[in-house]
């Protein structure tokens, strides 16, 4: 039997798995009761979104879903730390980040239903489209951060990736470029311990956060299921970035409680006991215990949120099921920004072809 790897010291922690507030010599966080309650609510909704989307995929309403189950604290907490003008570069699993950046979840559904490849407008939400190719977005985020420096602005960037992505050249080139140009970027690695079927311990021989040393900037390990520690650590890294001191690598140690995607079957490669162990470290439960134990929230509050989340999920499900599809000829839209006669001609031929079936009554 294998046991779940525990975060090694010195993982920053402000809230224990048992829901106890603890102090840390370098990091602290001062939030209002309303903010604590709001964070709880956001995590519950993100988990409910994940649950609903997984069900919708099983019912054939979505083509695929990449579950964020168990990573709510890492995602919601790190995105909570961002200022409005900061820019986030997520992977395809950062539903909690998109949620916190104000992206309409229906736009996420569009991507996984096969309606759109991007969904939302990245510039409006200052949250890039989900990037599916592992690690590409890290370089894009670093470049955006270099632009912030050139503009002499105080905007900063956070770019997300997983433990698997640390093997990618783009991620390591991102570290080099950010270091070279002192780019105001936070590298936020969610070590969820699984690159599909491969355990991170197999390809991570030096703890991920320690790799930052070799690139010339600080790395910090944080308990990724402790939303308070995640916020504190991310805020500090963003402040450092804004001050012109350059990048920080944060390794948020967490666990992918679900499958890699709905196409995956983790029972083939990992032990059920792992999951049971990590349920004891659940990011939402520990905040709930803290809120209750400190008299910040009571049962009525928790029940009301559950009811709200359920009602909202029902609305989401209905909206997904009745989602329209774009016009067929829209496949030709926006391939180029400037005019393109050859593609215009292809679109016209495509429309003519379909028009040809109109008289015959045959479905094209």
């Amino acid at each position, binding site marked *: 039997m294998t046991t779940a790897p525990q975060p090694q010291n010195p993982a920053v922690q402000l809230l224990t798995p048992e829901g106890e507030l603890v102090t840390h010599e370098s990091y602290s966080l001062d939030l209002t009761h309303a903010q604590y309650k709001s964070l709880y609510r956001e995590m519950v909704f993100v988990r409910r979104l994940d649950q609903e989307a997984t069900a919708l995929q099983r019912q054939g309403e979505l083509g695929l879903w990449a579950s964020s189950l168990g990573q709510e604290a890492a995602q919601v907490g790190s995105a909570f730390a961002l200022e409005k003008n900061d820019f986030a570069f997520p992977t395809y699993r950062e539903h909690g980040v998109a949620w916190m950046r104000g992206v309409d979840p229906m736009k996420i559904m569009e991507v996984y239903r096969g309606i759109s490849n991007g969904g939302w*407008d990245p510039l409006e939400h200052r949250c890039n*489209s989900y990037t599916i*190719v592992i690690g*590409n977005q*890290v370089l*894009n985020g670093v470049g955006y951060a270099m*632009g912030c420096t050139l503009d002499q602005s105080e905007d900063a960037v956070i770019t997300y990736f997983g433990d698997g992505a640390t093997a990618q050249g*783009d991620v390591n080139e991102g570290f080099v*470029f950010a270091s070279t140009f002192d780019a105001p970027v936070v590298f936020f690695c969610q070590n969820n311990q699984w690159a599909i079927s491969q355990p991170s311990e197999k390809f991570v021989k030096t703890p991920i956060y320690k790799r930052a040393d070799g690139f010339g900037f600080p790395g910090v390990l944080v308990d990724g299921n402790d939303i308070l520690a995640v916020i504190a650590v991310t805020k500090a890294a963003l402040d450092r970035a804004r001050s012109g001191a350059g990048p920080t690598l944060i390794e948020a140690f967490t666990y992918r409680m679900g499958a890699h995607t709905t196409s995956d079957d983790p029972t083939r490669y990992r032990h059920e006991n792992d999951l049971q162990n990590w349920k004891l470290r659940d990011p939402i439960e520990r905040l709930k215990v803290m809120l209750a134990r400190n008299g910040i929230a009571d049962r009525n509050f928790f029940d009301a949120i559950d009811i709200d989340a359920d009602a909202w999920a029902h609305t989401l499900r209905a909206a997904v099921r009745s989602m329209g599809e774009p016009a067929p000829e829209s496949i030709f839209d926006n391939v180029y920004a*400037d005019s393109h006669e050859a593609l215009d001609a292809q679109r016209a031929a495509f429309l003519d072809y379909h028009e040809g079936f109109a008289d015959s009554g045959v479905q094209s």
Partner: protein
Amino acid sequence: MTNDLTIAKALNQALRTAMEEDSKVLLFGEDIGKLGGVFRVTDELHKDFGDHRVLDSPLAESGIVGTAIGLAMRGYRPVLEIQFDGFVFPAFDQIISQLAKVHRRTNGSVKLPITIRIPYGGGIGAVEHHSESPETFFTHIPGLRVLTPSDPQSAYSCLLSAIRSNDPVIFFEPKRRYWDKGFVDRTESPVDPWRARIVRTGSDVTVVAYGPMVKTALQAANASEYSLEVIDLQSLSPLDDRSIADSVERTGRLVIVHEAPGNLGLGAEIAARIGKSCFYTLEAPIERVTGYDIPYPPSKLEEHYLPDHDRILVAVDSAMEA
């Protein structure tokens, strides 16, 4: 002041013009600052525009393109230099998976006006990976535009158009012609880079070439007993096949020349299009004169690989005798 410039200097002048007219234009690449690039195309620009407009990059091509995408998202108009043709491949992933697709993916919200300059082609006696013609990899990709100039005037006009384009442009520079001189009119743009142009009129055979092979085609035209019409494509994507067809309608014969291997090269696409649009006008099979389907050979053997004017003349004769 003479207006005769080398291609390298014409490109340099185009960069300068673009940087003067738009403060968001910045140059990014390996050794392009104080050194001025290995071919000196960015010569003096670092001195005149400074560290914030001319940035020396770390030695990582995916990093150059990947970060340029972020810079463009921030509102910049990066002009990148990939040092040699054979070194673009580490950046291929960012070019194909991100650069070409972001505008479409974001429903037109995010524009990536990025120009990637790549010296390409052989004939300079270089070591491996320094003489390749990888243009077809990029012409195949929707979302990219591909330009290649052949002389100083088209170098100046094409590069300015590439930088002003709101789409990503892969810009192939014919490195063995960098030092060819010619007249450059900088007051206006006498060349439309997105159209093929007739660089020599003729009546017997249309010879289509681009980049370094335009000069070779002109040499063949000078040496041929027949009247050759030489067309310089300039834009490889989109392809201006209408201009080629107009010429073939007059000559009835077509020879296509490129340095890249023939198999599935641009010649194949052009032949398919002209074979259809000029089917009733063609008086001979379409001929292709291309590199062989082999890895680029060592430099002592490259003359056997590169299409020269003799090989073009053989193809012309073949077309005339069909």
